[in-house]
């Protein structure tokens, strides 16, 4: 292909420079993410069309919004990808402080309470969840701190990392949003493990965490509904009434009722008759389970597996340890959210309000996940430059 003509345009640049970032876009990762996001449009539509129609609204309303969120997410992803990830390191502190500031602000009357949690800023007809931004900020700032030193990670640095994660974690818990708090803890653990924290330090950290949770329960610092959900899980959903066990039980029923091949798109009775609460958001997986069956849900889980694998691979291939740790943080975030969300839908994890990345209806989650994947794509394609 190398011919006579002088380089002309981007295409020529790409052809000439094998290390050019655009040549190393991680297509499997992007493809898996796009596949899930596309499925999300179908599933959100299936979950919402009946109730919207019943309420006399446009049955496509939430589908359209989700499509808009996805478009926004892709734009954000493109922007994140376009700027060399190492640049973010310089803005880590600023991003972190902004996120913490927003987490404080959301607790003031500026924030809005939805489902008994003060987690949102209402911006026109859209809602912004600062906890999502905080996850990204924490990933970047932890990666920045841990990549600057030597391995094994010094104890002081470990304490600093814990403190840095702890501040937004406590603010998130005050909303209260236990799910996001746990994601932050997962990110901390993920980054610390990969950064080379000593096993005994990690063990101490985990012990302190467990003690903190026990203390919270003991001193009645957990909201009743959260306690109920957690203890319902322990009772394995034997409830028959409309208590909090109902949600989990109906979710399991929906997924199980799908069988091998599902009831077919829009044919899920649990879905269209509204037996699973919060179905377009936290319990979106039940729609996949009921309507697409084992074939569909297993494919979805495989797609998540592909994403996790590609993020992990990128962490391995990254040019520098900052890149590795950013990927580790993103991996921990996604892995925890996917496992917790699917786990609670299937009754093997307690119910906490966590969206399923890329699939659940909601702008903040979609944009955050796209941005996080953007970071990973960024690290991947700049591994030679």
């Amino acid at each position, binding site marked *: 292909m190398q011919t006579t003509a002088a380089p002309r345009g981007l295409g020529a640049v790409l052809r000439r420079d094998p290390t050019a970032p655009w040549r190393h876009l991680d297509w499997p990762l992007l493809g898996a993410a796009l596949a899930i996001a596309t499925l999300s449009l179908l599933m959100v539509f299936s979950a919402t069309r009946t109730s919207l129609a019943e309420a006399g609204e446009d049955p496509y309303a939430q589908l359209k919004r989700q499509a808009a969120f996805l478009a926004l997410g892709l734009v954000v992803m493109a922007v994140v990808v376009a700027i060399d990830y190492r640049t973010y390191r310089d803005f880590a502190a600023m991003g972190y402080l902004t996120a913490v500031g927003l987490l404080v602000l959301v607790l003031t009357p500026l924030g809005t309470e939805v489902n008994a949690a003060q987690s949102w800023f209402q911006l026109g007809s859209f809602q912004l969840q600062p906890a999502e931004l905080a996850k990204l900020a924490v990933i970047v700032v932890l990666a920045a701190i841990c990549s600057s030193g030597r391995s094994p990670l010094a104890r002081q640095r470990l304490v600093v990392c814990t403190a840095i994660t702890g501040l937004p974690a406590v603010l998130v818990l005050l909303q209260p949003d236990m799910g996001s708090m746990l994601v932050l803890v997962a990110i901390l653990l993920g980054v610390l493990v990969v950064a080379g924290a000593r096993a005994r330090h990690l063990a101490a950290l985990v012990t302190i965490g467990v003690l903190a949770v026990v203390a919270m329960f003991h001193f009645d610092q957990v909201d009743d509904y959260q306690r109920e959900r957690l203890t319902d899980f322990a009772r394995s959903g034997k409830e028959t009434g409309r208590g909090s066990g109902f949600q989990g039980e109906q979710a399991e029923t929906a997924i199980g009722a799908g069988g091998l091949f599902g009831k077919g798109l829009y044919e899920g009775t649990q879905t269209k008759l*509204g037996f699973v609460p919060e179905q377009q958001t936290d319990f979106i997986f039940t729609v996949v389970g009921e309507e697409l069956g084992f074939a569909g849900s297993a494919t979805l889980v495989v797609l998540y597996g592909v994403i*996790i694998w590609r993020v992990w691979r990128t962490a391995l291939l990254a040019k520098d340890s900052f890149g590795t740790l950013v990927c*580790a943080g993103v991996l921990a975030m996604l892995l925890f959210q996917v496992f917790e969300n699917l786990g609670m839908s299937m009754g093997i994890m307690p119910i906490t309000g966590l969206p399923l990345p890329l699939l659940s209806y909601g702008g903040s989650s979609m944009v955050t996940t796209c941005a996080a994947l953007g970071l990973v794509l960024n690290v991947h394609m700049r591994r030679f430059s």
Partner: protein
Amino acid sequence: MTADSPRLRLGIVAVVAVSLFAALFARLWFLQVLTAGEHELAAERNQQRVVPLPAPRGRILDRDGEVLVANRASNVVLIDRAELNTLEDGEAEAVFARLGAIVDQPPSMLEAALADTTLGPFTPVPVAEDVDEEVLVEVRERQSELPGVQARQLAVRAYPHGTLAAHVLGYVGAINAEELDAAGGPDAPAGYRRASRIGKDGIERAFEDDLRGVDGEVVLEVDADNVPIRELSRREPVQGDDVVLSLDLEAQQAAEQSLAEGMVKTQRHRDPESGEPVIFGGSTVVLDVKEGTVAAMASWPTFNPADFIYEITPEQFAALTDPAQGTPFVNRALLGLYAPGSTWKLVTALAGMEAGLIDPLATINDPGVYTIPDCARGCGRQNAGRAAYKDVDLRRAITVSSDTYFYDLGARMWQQRERLGETPMQDMASLLGFGTKTGVGLPVEAAGRLASPAVRAAQYEANPDAFLSGDWFIGDNVNLAIGQGDVAVTPIQLANAYATFATGGTRYQPNLALRVQDQDGTLIREIEPRVGAQVELPAGARDPVLDGLIGATQSADPKGTAYNAFAGFPHEAYPVAGKTGTAQTGGDRRDDALFAAFAPAGDPRYAISVVMERAGFGSTWAAPVARSVLGSLSGLEEPEAVKPAAGGSRA
């Protein structure tokens, strides 16, 4: 590779990630492949609600098609306690408050209604009945705020004639555990459900299978709030068949009204300890002797079957079974047990004829007193009021009710037991149907009591402490000869015995229904007369006994015991053959008044018995009631209020 190698640490992350994904796959496999079936069922159950459509019951008609029991629509609000119990604390109270505002009742009343323990835990409890259509609509529209509350239109029983024939008709109620078990349980082909209604007594129970019909059902698709989305399938209920009774509305009305008028006048008793008034009851039975059916059956005091349309309260039920209030719930016609007194003389006379102890034309001297032969202690007997009837033959003995004549018969039967056997009277009584249920076909009936030497010996054997002796003495025979002592009969047995004599020996098992027909009037099933026994009456007995019985109502000299009660009766057109009776049933030495008769005497159509507890003389109290009823049946007398007859005596 050292412990700090990033590769190794990422390896640890990979192991964690793979484990977690493996767990997800395993769980997914478990839910969607291994246990998919049960989840599918659960999802199906979730979305389907089967709403039973109870079949309207068939109607109950009198012999001419007059409606005695029909159906009407009632709007009812019910609460399902099982569903209410699944609510969280405080939520049930909120439901009561909301529902109370809709049905305009204090929430505490609703809660109190739920405390009813007579219903099973799965039977929805009615908390508001006969409410407006708007209430039903509102409850249904606000279903999501009212978990456990049901609004239904039910077909309930309607009684166009009020309490008429309540004991015969019976009532309908929610099926109980035993009845459901007896029907084979909730899933048996019989098709009863936990909330089914079932005939509990009377015709409603006896003809349950004809009356109940076939329930239908609607299968609804519902959403998570139990709000119906659409109908998946529907099977219409099929109304039950109508039962046409042998009862005649007018005869029944005459019987009930005459009995009630008479009974009300006899209420003068008070409880000896508390001094509170005590109500005693009575009964009258009219049999159609040609047809072998019941024409009227009345028991006083009575109850209102409409009280059972919804659930009866424990207080209501207690009142219905309270002896001081006359146990209105009990059908005395079938369950009341009374010493027959002089009405029994029919039995003694026939037994005496059969034994050859009576020459109908021969007279004995009745000085008014009688001494039992071969007797050690307590051997004196006397006629009612020590009346001396002088020379009495069989006819006269029946007409004036000479006790002495029958004492003598009873004594002679015992004296000649070697030849006659020990039980000629009991044997004749059995032939006439005493001591066994008539088999009229209602759920409960008493057999009565008919003692004999063998029975007494067996009783003594079984329980020596309860009896002075297991022996039968001549005095027992003397007492039995006038229907006293160890004998108890039901009003229907008494009427049926006189009916058997009236027909010349055909003893029916009286039917209460003529036929079963569908809603178009097409015959489903005819109910054939049932002959219980064909009794051969002793030769030559019919005429003198019949004359004696006619004399009791007609003869001025000697004066028949019911002559005053039947004064002015159209005897020519409608002769009545009857017998009064006055007997002590309880230990309180107060007399029950009895009367048994058939008419018209020449070609009998009806037999009647009247029993009035603790009323006094049969001639004074029971005969006028019978006269009133027979007057109506004859169509010859305008009904007028029953009043006690003058000049009555114990006889």
